[in-house]
């Protein structure tokens, strides 16, 4: 993995909210086909980092390099146009609309004559490709289970064919089976060559899907581990600050 050009790289990124330094001098990158888990305690800066990438809180300083070129992300549209899709924890689905309608929300086909057949067909193909288990794409999203809703939200982020998919706590509040569905889906994203950034509190989930684990602590990088060479204790130590994790990087 190390030889590749990262699809997205942040270099020396800082962000403060008034007197609060949420991120200081963070270097972060993700390669194509790689799943990077972003972990850290509450307030460590995970959400801020994600929002910097998504353009919701543009960075104060530092460089952002996308596919080898320096870019500016000053708003959500910049991020989307680059090919960075973000799925937030509150899924931002409309419960009163069906699966197809939610998938195509904001990018409907046909301004004055919605092309329902084409959208439904494409939705079916997309969900099939991701092996998402939804019986009827015309059922209201409000009727779906939590895992299915998460799958719909993730699938929706893929419609724009993004290079980077950012998932904010995708398995929080899900049961064991539902979590397995979502983790499967993350693996499938990786297999399709998407770069995936996952925020998670659950280290078991993290070790199950992540290639690399990036730890934030108090707004600073506290460790960057290859998941397969790392133990849970090492990661916990980095999260809590018991050790520096730097030396474990290589």
């Amino acid at each position, binding site marked *: 993995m190390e030889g590749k050009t990262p699809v997205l790289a942040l270099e020396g990124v800082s962000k403060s909210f008034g007197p609060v330094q949420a991120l200081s001098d963070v270097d972060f990158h993700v390669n194509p086909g790689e799943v990077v888990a972003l972990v850290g305690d509450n307030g460590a800066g995970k959400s801020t980092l994600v929002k910097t990438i998504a353009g919701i809180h543009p960075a104060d300083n530092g460089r952002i390099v996308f596919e080898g070129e320096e870019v500016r992300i000053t708003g959500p549209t910049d991020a989307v146009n680059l090919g960075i899709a973000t799925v937030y924890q509150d899924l931002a689905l409309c419960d009163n609309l069906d699966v197809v309608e939610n998938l195509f929300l904001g990018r409907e086909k046909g301004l004055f004559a919605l092309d329902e057949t084409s959208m439904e067909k494409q939705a079916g193909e997309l969900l099939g490709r991701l092996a998402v288990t939804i019986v009827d794409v015309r059922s209201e999203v409000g009727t779906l289970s939590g895992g299915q809703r998460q799958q719909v939200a993730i699938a929706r982020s893929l419609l724009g064919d993004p290079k980077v998919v950012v998932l904010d706590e995708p398995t929080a*509040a899900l049961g064991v089976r539902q979590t397995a569905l979502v983790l499967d889906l993350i693996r499938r994203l990786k297999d399709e060559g998407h770069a995936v950034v996952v925020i998670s509190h659950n280290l078991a989930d993290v070790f199950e899907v992540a290639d690399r684990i990036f730890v934030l602590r108090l707004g600073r990088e506290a460790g960057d581990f290859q998941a397969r060479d790392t133990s849970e204790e090492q990661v916990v130590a980095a999260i809590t600050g018991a050790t520096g994790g730097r030396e474990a990087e290589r």
Partner: protein
Amino acid sequence: MSAAGGGAAAAAAEPEVAPPRADLLRRFVQGDLAELRVVIALAVIWAIFYVQEDRFLSSVNLTNLVLQATAVGLVAIGIVLVLLLGEIDLSVGAVSGLCAAIMAVLVEQEGWSPYLGIAAGVLAGTAIGFFQGSIFTRFAIPSFVVTLAGLLAWPGAQLEVLGETGTVNLTDPKITGLTNTFYSDTVGWIFALLAIGAFAAATLLGRQRRVREGLSATPLGTLVLRIVLVAVVVLVAIWVLNDDRGLPLAVLILVGFVLFFFYVTTRTTFGRHIFAVGGNAEAARRAGIKVNRVRVIVFMIASTMAAVGGIMAASRLLAVNQSSGAGEFLLLAIAAPVIAGTSLFGGRGSVWHALLGALVIQSILNGMDLLGWETAVKFMVTGAVLLAAVMVDAIARRQRERAGRV
């Protein structure tokens, strides 16, 4: 943790396959088949009044009933769109009176052509909607309050427009003709056949397209049954109307607007966005929908339809006076779609509810008139019907939630 919303409750509800009949019953209980519920209610109301007074179902009375329902139905179309957003517009009654007054003064006193006068009245409504919608979105004041201010203010403007006498009689044949034009039997039948043919073609072609694309399609038998039902309703309606004075222009106007806005709400991107904003405004915003623009346009439509309804009401009354658009007119226009099953909480409803609800309300009012009931009783019965309808809606909502749906 906010993602937990449906999580825990819905996790238990793995995809279940209910047998079709139970499914139909479940959908009925959960309020998905609100239209069917209203049609049944309408049938019951008609049966009750028919037993009491058999003139109720005479073609003359039914034609009158439909004509009486036109103005409320037109205003209610705009209300449906506002309710779909999860908002309310309390100013539609006042706006209908003001816009009718503007039209009446321009045509009867200033000598404008009726077409220009009607256009001016309607556009005045659009402008008012733009104003109210902009205040609502720009200052993030609840629509309830903004339109409440309108409810208080526009009748003042109406008095100002009407001048000292406070009444303008309408004599222009074009304007009075809006509610007093009836087409010959032949024209009525031609319209009926065109409507049935168009519905059948749209239904069958739509199915053919889905089959060609390899998508699941409604069984042909169900669609044919649906077409037959629509054909029967249309043919019976035309038969009844023809038995009296013929197909009224007012009915064509009402049905035309309903069809137009039904198309807008269900088949256009803008319509989809109305439902999205009403269902989850934050989700809509994140999906890139210009939420406030959708809101302003919907308020413009609501006031425009209020103006259209006000003009039709004026045409029927042959005058505009200080009480045009006042009294229970506003409440009937809001009650109509709610009775028919449009949710007050946004995101659920149909433009057809405006028409069906207006028919239900007008049937009750008309029937009580025929039986000579006192005004006091009429008000209370109307209120009770509205309350009952909203209770049914609330029960349906609870059933949906119990089934893990929102």
